[in-house]
């Protein structure tokens, strides 16, 4: 392999010389020299004879050539090396492919010539003339250039090398390894004259570089391009044929070429050559004793030049130094696009070449290219610094003040979690007692902390995030506009309540009056003045009773409003529930001593009696809230000022009071009864507690996340709860779903005063100090799998603000999609659909 390469290089080198020659002045190409040319070749051995200056010059050149050639070889080798180092990209190789092929062919030609030259030496001396030589030299120039490139690549190209090897093999077989080279290298012209012989070479089969012994047992030696067998001819001959062959006078000089499967008759020259080799002579035509001529340039150390003649211009080597040439070559290659600069690859190469391998370099950049989760590498621990040293520098040691300060500091604020101390030697260093704990925490950190980056999904259309809700128009009926007002109160109306049949509306106001209005005519039918501001009014939800409960200051009064006329009898049920049970005549079995029930009787209370006031219940503290059980026999009150025992449950027919809850951290605000089960909801400031009254146990705690609950309401089906808070929040709880809000509605700008469900329609509403009443569609499905549908429907905003108070109470009509609201502007308004 190497040899073949070298030979090819030699060819190259030689042609280069020719090239150089060609660049010489015309004098060289004068016809005279056509004569001298063959002589030179012929007289290489007779070089001692005197020659003309020109010829000497030429001779000098000639003789110089081996040296130059060596240089060239070296250059080429350097080229090899450099290019190997540069390690062209595969793309570049591709660029070269085509060229390589061509070059391969060329080389083949050249090298087949190598072989053939040996046999056709006689032809060399033909009258080719220097002109022809020059012409061919021009061709060779082209060849050279391509050769040069190919030289740089040939090490890679396998196709070309295989052919060369075959040729070399051939030469091996012929046992003419060196001699022919020497022969023709001395005279480049031969090389071109032997063109004809190349035609013979076309016969060379291309079985490839395959050991021929594989085919020993076959009658063929391989396959041609078309896949047909290449038959052996010689070896198949039988002994008679072989004997007959012996009759050939040239038999003794016939050699069998295994590869090409043909017989070659060695020429006389071949024989001479063989003979000379056998006799250990030099190859004919090679002068081993040629004069050594030193041009003088080879010795830069020499002080004196070998001759005084100025260096001729032609000897100027335009290519300059190797380095410059290399740079030029590379720049050209880059400009032509043969080399593509790929920084990364080169960098990697360089890094590898540096030899210093950064063990930790990749750790930080370790990016998983999986598209799903992007992991963040765990943070590295800080490397120990001077402080951690067993012998820290003085400035790191703490003096007394610093020590005190260190102790006073919050552990999290300390710069490091140990006191630096100085030891004489490392072996005096005591064991670090926090080691295991720190390692453990580190391990915890490494495997417990989820380190993934959340990839934000950007969508172009932000409306896509909105849930698809039905249009409000499709969810009619719902209250949409103010229809009528109930005027008459002189101060803010704190509380309103509607009778179970929707005919009457009760209101309690800060002007210390309780009024009852006829809804259909807005007529005020009843008005009762009491001692202080009315906190709460509540109709008994059972339609068979006509009972109104009113809470003001620390009293609750039970009224049977004389709506049917003062003398009209009330329904027997009403009377029955209000008559005093006989048992509690003297010793009242009241569980709660702080609450007292009084029957309103006597002449002094005649006025109250006429107004329908039947029972007074005295509490120790102000009653803020009152709510009825759906059956109308129980009601519950809260008086937050009382603190822990603020919730009381009153039994109307038995006239008894209980305070079932003893412990409560924050004062209870609101209570509600479940609409059809013995379940009781108690809301303190933050938490809604759900109690089972039968089992007397806590069922659930609803965590509202609200700072101050103002109001709660239970869905008529009992599985959903809404809550309004003074911190503007409205939360919807699905009791089956979670103890946390299913939906949090942050629509109000000020404190939410009241939230209510519609008793029959899928509506709920909230009112706030920002004067608005928000009406929502709140559909609860029987299907447990389907979550409630909440759609904001309407904002009703007609109340006026007085002292930053807005809408104080709202109530839905029991059947119609109407909502009543009372406000700080002392009006009650009705909104209808």
């Amino acid at each position, binding site marked *: 392999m190497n040899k073949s390469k070298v030979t090819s290089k030699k060819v190259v080198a030689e042609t280069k010389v020719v090239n150089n020659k060609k660049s010489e002045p015309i004098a060289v190409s004068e016809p005279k020299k056509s004569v001298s040319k063959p002589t030179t070749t012929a007289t290489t051995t007779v070089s001692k004879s005197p020659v003309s200056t020109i010829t000497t010059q030429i001779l000098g050149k000639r003789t110089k050539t081996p040296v130059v050639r060596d240089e060239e070889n070296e250059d080429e080798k350097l080229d090899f090396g450099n290019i190997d180092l540069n390690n062209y990209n595969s793309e570049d190789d591709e660029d070269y492919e085509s060229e390589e092929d061509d070059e391969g062919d060329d080389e083949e030609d050249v090298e087949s010539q190598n072989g053939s030259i040996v046999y056709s030496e006689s032809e060399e001396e033909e009258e080719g003339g220097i002109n022809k030589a020059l012409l061919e030299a021009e061709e060779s120039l082209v060849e050279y250039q391509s050769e040069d490139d190919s030289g740089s690549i040939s090490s890679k190209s396998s196709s070309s090398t295989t052919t060369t090897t075959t040729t070399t093999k051939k030469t091996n077989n012929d046992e003419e390894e060196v001699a022919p080279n020497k022969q023709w290298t001395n005279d480049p012209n031969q090389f071109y004259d032997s063109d004809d012989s190349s035609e013979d070479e076309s016969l060379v089969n291309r079985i490839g570089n395959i050991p021929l012994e594989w085919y020993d047992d076959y009658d063929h030696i391989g396959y041609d391009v078309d896949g047909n067998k290449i038959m052996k001819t010689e070896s198949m001959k039988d002994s008679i044929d072989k004997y007959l062959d012996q009759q050939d006078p040239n038999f003794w000089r016939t050699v069998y070429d295994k590869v090409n499967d043909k017989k070659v008759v060695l020429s006389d020259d071949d024989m001479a050559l063989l003979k000379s080799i056998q006799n250990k002579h030099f190859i004919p035509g090679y002068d081993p004793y040629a004069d050594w001529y030193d041009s003088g340039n080879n010795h830069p150390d020499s002080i004196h030049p070998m001759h005084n003649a100025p260096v001729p211009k032609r000897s100027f080597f335009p290519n300059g130094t190797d380095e410059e040439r290399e740079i030029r070559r590379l720049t050209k290659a880059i400009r032509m696009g043969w080399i593509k600069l790929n920084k990364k690859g080169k960098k990697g190469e360089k890094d590898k070449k540096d030899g210093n391998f950064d063990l930790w370099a990749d750790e930080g950049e370790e990016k998983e290219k999986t598209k799903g989760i992007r992991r963040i590498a765990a943070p590295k621990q800080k490397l120990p610094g001077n402080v951690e040293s067993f012998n820290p520098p003085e400035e790191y040691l703490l003096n007394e003040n610093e020590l005190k300060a260190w102790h006073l500091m919050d552990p999290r604020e300390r710069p490091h979690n140990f006191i630096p101390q100085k030891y004489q030697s490392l072996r005096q260093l005591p064991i670090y007692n926090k080691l295991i704990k720190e390692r453990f925490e580190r391990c915890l950190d490494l495997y417990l902390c989820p380190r993934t980056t959340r990839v934000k999904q950007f969508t172009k259309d932000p409306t896509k995030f909105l849930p698809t809700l039905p249009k409000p128009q499709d969810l009619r009926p719902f209250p949409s506009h103010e229809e009528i007002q109930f005027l008459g109160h002189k101060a803010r109306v704190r509380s309103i309540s509607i009778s179970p*049949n929707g005919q009457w509306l009760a209101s309690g106001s800060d002007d210390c009056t309780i009024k009852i209005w006829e809804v259909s005519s*807005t007529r005020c039918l009843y008005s009762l003045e009491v001692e202080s501001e009315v906190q709460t009014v509540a109709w008994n939800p059972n339609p068979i009773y006509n009972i109104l409960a009113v809470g003001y200051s620390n009293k609750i009064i039970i009224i049977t409003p004389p*709506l*049917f006329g003062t003398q009209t009898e009330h329904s027997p049920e009403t009377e029955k529930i209000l008559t005093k049970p006989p048992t509690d005549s003297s010793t009242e079995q009241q569980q709660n001593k702080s609450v007292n029930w009084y029957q309103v009787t006597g002449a002094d209370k005649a006025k109250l009696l006429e107004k329908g006031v039947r029972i007074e219940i005295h509490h120790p503290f102000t009653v803020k809230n009152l709510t009825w059980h759906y059956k109308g026999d129980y009601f519950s009150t809260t008086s937050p000022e009382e603190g822990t025992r603020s919730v009381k449950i009153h039994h109307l027919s038995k006239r008894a009071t209980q305070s079932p809850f003893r412990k409560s951290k924050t004062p209870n605000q609101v209570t509600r009864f479940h609409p059809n089960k013995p379940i009781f909801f108690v809301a303190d400031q933050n938490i809604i507690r759900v109690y089972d009254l039968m089992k007397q146990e806590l069922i659930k705690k609803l965590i509202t996340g609200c700072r101050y609950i103002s109001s709660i309401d239970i869905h008529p089906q009992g599985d959903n709860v809404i809550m309004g808070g003074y911190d503007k929040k409205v939360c919807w709880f699905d009791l089956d779903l979670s103890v946390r809000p299913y939906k949090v509605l942050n629509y109000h700008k000020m404190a939410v005063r009241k939230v209510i469900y519609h008793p029959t329609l899928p509506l709920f509403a909230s009112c706030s100090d920002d004067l608005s009443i928000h009406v929502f569609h709140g559909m609860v499905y029987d299907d447990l799998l389907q979550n409630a549908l909440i759609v904001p429907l309407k904002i009703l905003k007609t109340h006026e603000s007085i002292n930053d108070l807005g809408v104080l109470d709202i109530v839905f009509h029991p059947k119609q999609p109407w909502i009543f609201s009372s406000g700080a502007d002392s009006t009650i308004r009705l909104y*209808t659909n």
Partner: protein
Amino acid sequence: MESENKNNNKKVKEESKVKVKFITNDANIRVTDTPIAVPVRLGRLGLSEVIHHLREEENETSKPFDFLINGKFIRTTLDKHIKNANLSEEQIITIEYLEAITEPKREKECQHDDWVSCVDGSNFGLVVSGSYDLGVRVWGYDGELISTGTGHLAGVKSVCWISDKNADNLSFVSASMDKTLRVWNFNKSQSEIKALACLKEHTGTIESVYVSPDSSRIVSASMDSTIKLWSIKDIPNQHATTSSSIEKSNSKKRRLANNTNNETAAVDQQSEIIHNITESLASVTVPNSQGVTVVNWTTQFQMLSGSMDSKIRLWDVSTLVANDTIPTPAPLTDLDYSMESGLIVTAHKDRIVRIWDPRSSDETKSQTQSLISHKTWVTSVNWNPSSKYHCCSTSHDGTVKYWDIRTKIPLYTIDTLEKSKDKVLSSSFISNKNKNINDYSIVSGGTDSKLRIHYNDKQEQQQ
């Protein structure tokens, strides 16, 4: 067609005349029925002038007319109306004209002690009103208080005359929030009101009462979702006349009894004179009605009811079964049936007055007209007893509107309440003996505690 119309319009503008024929039902104002070419740019007033011009020899004082083409009022100019109605100018257009109904210029105020909740003027020349001051009052046509009856314990919600052949001895029924109905006798000669009977069975406030056309039965509707029928024949009529003085003293006694809260004694004493009828002839509970607000009779065999659940029900009187149910968009407050046209007019809590035809089988088509002009709840509606087309409505917005159901715009609006916040709760027509369409007056009562009788000068002259 459209292009043709446009061409026609152009022609109309060029020629600007169309041949019309005037017809009328009123013989007094009849003009020649030969077709006349009139300019199409004329509106109502222009056409009125034409009529005046045609009637000039009769020397009539100028009075505006209203014009109808195919039962539609001309409210714009003639050409626009023709265009909208897709009529052809080529043919002779028949225009019906009638005297324009003008707003009653005059009114009389009859002061009550409290809100006037109901009024009925269907008995000739006499108006009965009920008030939240617990009294029922009978007023003369001229607004003079004839008599006051007391006895109800809560506000009176509804009153109705019981037509009787005997013009001197009239009776009426009142319904109250105290869950009772009272039948009263009004002796015209003595100018006295006497309570005849007290009908107690309802458990809720009674919202409406109406007397059957043959004056044999009373129907009452209550918020307790029941409709009850009572027989008038059970109430002895002559009884009251004989013992009127006793009744009076008894009422006084009853008042005393009230003060002493001795109800039983009062009832005992009362029962001697006033018939306490505690059992109705028939009763029916209207399911899911949320309270029946109004009842009415169509014929003596069929009743109408309107309730808070927004449904009009037609009842067969003999079986008390709801034959037909007409769903409406809003709760009803009042309805009235026109004997003349067979249509029902209803008042709703969604500001709209609607006209229904109960005879059409398709429920969706039974609504024939919706009249939208009131600003808030409509409280009462009444057909003009002498007209097929005219009705009036009252509303919480304090107005009385007079409608011709052929046009969607009210003919006029009576808006005479001083305070804008006052509401009109009830109204009624005071019918006259001569059935002239324009010869009527409207009586209305509201939260200003006044009964207002609206009438024109002409009627006063006639009186």
